[in-house]
């Protein structure tokens, strides 16, 4: 590093920032991956991991997702006995079995989907969330099976299903078994549709491939978080195919809304209220539950002080 680089503030230096961004050590401080503001972690978490400065929605895990969506009382994790199976004995550079164990160790989850029964503002729901940290949230047998079983619980109890998708697509290592999970999940969703049990699909960054071309776009309502990327083919593949640059904002939530793929964009802090309101209407609940419980505040003061 030259002397001039050394005296420049880190934010001005470019090139290597992407690596550094995520390298902020665990602790009290965090950095926004978009605007690079230094953020006080408790503030950030209080703000549901939405940057108080630029409102960038950072990725959050499946458990946290369900934690902020469901009522605190009366939630139970369901379908916990579903486990991944390596039917093909798939091996590339590593064995799939070893990749699975590594992912299980790193995340503490059996596979990439968590399912819970609970309520939102007192309205009973079944909710599932993808764990993107587990194999890129990819859908193989375990994800498809757990989704289907959770949907069956919703069907049986006639309560809505809300899915928070975050996935790179079908899981390569389970080959056609993964592909068939698309058919399986779509079939159970169609059954819900036929029986008038609501299904809401929430797209969070990112949703691609086989998950996008099945369960994520089959909601009675499809909604997305701001700036979530969702599409069938990844931008790289499209660029390689058509040999041109993609337009700005391509495949982002706003693009999806403009092209009619989703009903609305809901910022994370309003997700609970909005979906409760919508579901209370769909379920003919006598009281509309869409009113905000309390406005989450943006406690950015301490952060600003810190930056000065």
């Amino acid at each position, binding site marked *: 590093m030259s002397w001039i680089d050394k005296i420049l503030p880190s934010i001005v230096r470019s090139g290597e920032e992407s690596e550094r961004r995520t390298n902020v050590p665990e602790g009290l401080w965090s950095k926004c991956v978009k605007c690079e503001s230094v953020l006080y972690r408790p503030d950030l978490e209080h703000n549901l991991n939405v940057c108080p400065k630029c409102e960038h929605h950072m990725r959050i895990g499946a458990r946290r997702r369900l934690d902020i969506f469901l009522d605190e009382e009366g939630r139970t994790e369901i379908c916990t006995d579903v486990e991944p199976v390596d039917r*093909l004995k798939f*091996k590339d*550079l590593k064995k799939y079995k070893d990749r699975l164990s590594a992912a299980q160790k790193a995340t503490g989850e059996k596979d990439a989907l968590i399912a819970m029964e609970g309520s939102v503002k007192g309205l009973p729901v079944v909710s599932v969330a993808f764990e993107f940290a587990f194999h890129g949230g990819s859908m193989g047998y375990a994800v498809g099976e757990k989704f289907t079983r959770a949907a069956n619980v919703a069907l049986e109890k006639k309560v809505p299903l809300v899915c928070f998708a975050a996935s790179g697509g079908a899981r*390569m290592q389970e080959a056609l078994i993964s592909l*068939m999970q698309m058919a399986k999940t779509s079939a159970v969703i169609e059954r819900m549709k036929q029986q008038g049990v609501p299904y809401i699909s929430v797209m969070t960054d990112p949703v691609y491939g*086989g998950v996008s071309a099945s369960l*994520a*776009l089959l909601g009675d309502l499809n909604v997305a978080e701001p700036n979530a990327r969702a599409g069938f083919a990844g931008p790289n593949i499209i660029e390689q195919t*058509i040999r041109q640059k993609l337009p700005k904002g391509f495949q982002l939530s706003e693009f999806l809304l403009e092209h009619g793929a989703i009903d609305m964009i809901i910022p994370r802090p309003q997700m609970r209220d909005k979906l409760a309101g919508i579901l209370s209407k769909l379920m003919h609940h006598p009281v509309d539950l869409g009113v905000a419980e309390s406005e989450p505040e943006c406690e950015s003061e301490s952060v600003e002080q810190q930056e000065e």
Partner: protein
Amino acid sequence: MNPNYLDFEQPIAELEVKIEELQLVGNDNDININEEISKLKEKSHKLTEKIFSDLTPWDIVKVARHPQRPYTLDYLPRVFTDFEELHGDRHFGDDKSIIGGLARLNGEPVMVIGQEKGRSVKDKVLRNFGMPKPEGYRKALRLMEMAERFKLPIITLIDTPGAYPGIDSEERGISEAIAQNLAVMSRLKTPIICLVIGEGSSGGALGIGVGDHTAMLQYSTYFVISPEGCANIIWKTSEKAPDAAEAMGLTSTILENLGIVDSTIPEPMGAAHRDIDLMAERITAHLSEQLKKLQALDADDLLAQRYERLMSYGND
């Protein structure tokens, strides 16, 4: 190298050239030459048999993509009669990479839907190399729903390198179009028979591939990501595609073992393109047999059986 033969088939190509040459000479009358020709033909036949009895998954990928591989348009006139093509999705346009229409199979009316890659360069462009856009899947859905209304069985022929990955495809909702087909096909009250005739690539194939019975031609492939795509992700180079093909289990033998594909239709010696008529005969026989079985079922039983089958994917 003879472009009509794949790399592993070149020894056969050489023999065939010799046979052709001798045949030209043979026209100038000589009995010994005829004998020689039949010897060479025998040799060529044995060689073909030997080579094709031991194909690697990557070889099969190449056969499935063979430039002379029969496409939907080759089978349509051979397997069906009175085909009447129907066009358009009624929303945006007519996607020529998916052909659909009314036809008769052994005299019985059916709805046929097939993906078409196109033979000549001009055709390939017209058919977008067999890569459907949303309007293709929506046309297929429209025709399938029509088939349900008029109690016509549905037959789908799968052969695509994948749904089209382009800006317009995304803008018009390719994901939703495929997803919708998967959902609706799971409950259409009419028999659906699916047949992979070439390449069954991922969601683009499955978009017309949900049904009561799925078969594959012996040298066709069915996969969640192309071997090149898989190799790119894992080895960071598409040159490892043969290894990827090996690992992925994309052949009918493996897929039958996994319970995803129900049966395999044997191809003529040296693959379908060597004898399209024979291949078509076998396809006709297969479709007739399956149709008969499925039509014997009561509509509710048919649906229950299809649903159960869908739910079982991936179970032991």
